[in-house]
């Protein structure tokens, strides 16, 4: 029978996967989001349109559905190893984790892209013009004047999005990634004990608190001087 210690151990190991998914998603989605944001601002209209359409589709459909498509569609269409692998490995294959990670990265990159774009477009035109009349080059203006203001603009919405990501990782269980929620539901399924499921909330809460605190510090540092 499970006790508090053994459940904590099982959940903690599941939470390791949650954290891996969380940090890897951020690691890839932030740069990709920057690239998406740049593409959705290029002058070449067709490319800009395609990028914005893609972002619209990703933001307009459930992440849950995207997870299913990423993990199962290649198997159906190409007979891809994602599903085949399961036959030889009784444990959940790493490829499911990679599939889930891929879906998370694309999904979050689109949200980040919109935040970055908003952050860039919210800079008053006067800031660029002031740089221009002071004889700065475009890159000097961007790196010395604009960038820090963009970062300041995006901290609050990014904080929101990142806290959401903490909780969204629970969706990965639907494609067999044994993160904390999956670990708890396994205890429920095999031993009919439900409290471990409720107990996962404590892990999410603690981690969200940490993330919020971190962003709070960044925000405070950046707004020490202006507005």
């Amino acid at each position: 029978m499970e006790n508090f210690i053994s459940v904590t151990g099982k959940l903690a190991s599941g939470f390791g996967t949650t954290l891996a998914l969380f940090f890897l998603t951020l690691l890839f989605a932030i740069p990709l989001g920057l690239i998406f944001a740049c593409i959705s601002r290029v002058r070449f209209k067709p490319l800009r349109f395609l990028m914005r359409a893609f972002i619209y589709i990703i933001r307009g459909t459930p992440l849950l559905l995207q997870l299913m498509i990423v993990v199962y569609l290649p198997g159906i269409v190409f007979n891809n190893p994602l599903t085949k692998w399961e036959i030889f490995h009784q444990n959940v294959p790493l490829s499911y984790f990679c599939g889930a990670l891929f879906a998370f990265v694309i999904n979050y990159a689109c949200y980040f892209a919109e935040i970055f774009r908003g952050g860039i477009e919210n800079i008053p035109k006067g800031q660029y013009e002031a740089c221009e009349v002071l004889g700065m080059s475009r890159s000097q203006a961007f790196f010395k004047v604009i960038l820090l203001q963009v970062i300041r603009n995006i901290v609050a919405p990014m904080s929101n999005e990142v806290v959401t990501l903490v909780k969204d990782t629970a969706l990965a269980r639907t494609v067999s990634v044994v993160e904390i929620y999956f670990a708890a539901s396994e205890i429920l399924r095999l031993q009919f004990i439900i409290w471990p499921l409720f107990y996962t909330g404590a892990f999410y809460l603690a981690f969200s608190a940490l993330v919020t605190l971190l962003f709070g510090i960044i925000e405070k540092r950046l707004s020490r001087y202006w507005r």
Partner: protein
Amino acid sequence: MALLEVKDLTKSFGDTRVLKGINFEMESGEVLSIIGSSGSGKTTLLRCLNFLETADGGSISVDGKAVFDAADPSLSSPKAIRHNRTSFGLVFQSFNLFPQYSVLKNLTLAAILKAKEENPDFSKSRNKITASLDKRAMELLDRIGLGDKKDNYPCELSGGQQQRVAIARALMLTPRILCFDEPTSALDPELTKEVLHVIKDLKTAGNTMIVVTHEMDFARNASDKVIFMANGIIEESGTPGKIFESPESPLLQSFLKQ
């Protein structure tokens, strides 16, 4: 020879012709006020002089040297513009100070970047260069009476103080001609006074300035020459005495009655 010569300057936005051929000259040390109702093209003219807009036709020369000529595309390359725009400085209606930098850094930033670009061994003499720029910035801040605010951030200053810092920032690059785009329109009367006071001080010091303004008292008392613009042309120009005491154009007469 005139310091600034503007010839046949035209500019359209889409189908709207905002400037329909602007011609004027000004001498070194002169203060020129540009008045006129909203939409008359005053701000567009100033923005063309500062290369924030590219005029469609005409030419601009400083000291007899063309800095803009619609017929000469070599003057419209980004490099040429960056070089030629240093003849002009611009003070905006909405100040546009950099919020993340202290007052002192607002003044020195562009100058430091310029020095970095022009000196191949900037890193060696970095301290010397920044020290001399800081010194110059402090002189300017003292001149506008804000020496004690050097470490403050723009948001900690009143609108009038911010605008004075913006003026000092523009002066930092020693432009031949300093332009003001309705510098007091965002300020209440009390703060307007302190900004106009600084501009008058600059006149005494011999700065050449173009001021787009709605402050008729300023245009009358502080300028050497006044241009009245209406519908994209210079409707009337002359000394403040002539413009304000004996206006000829009916448009100017009705403008002054408002």
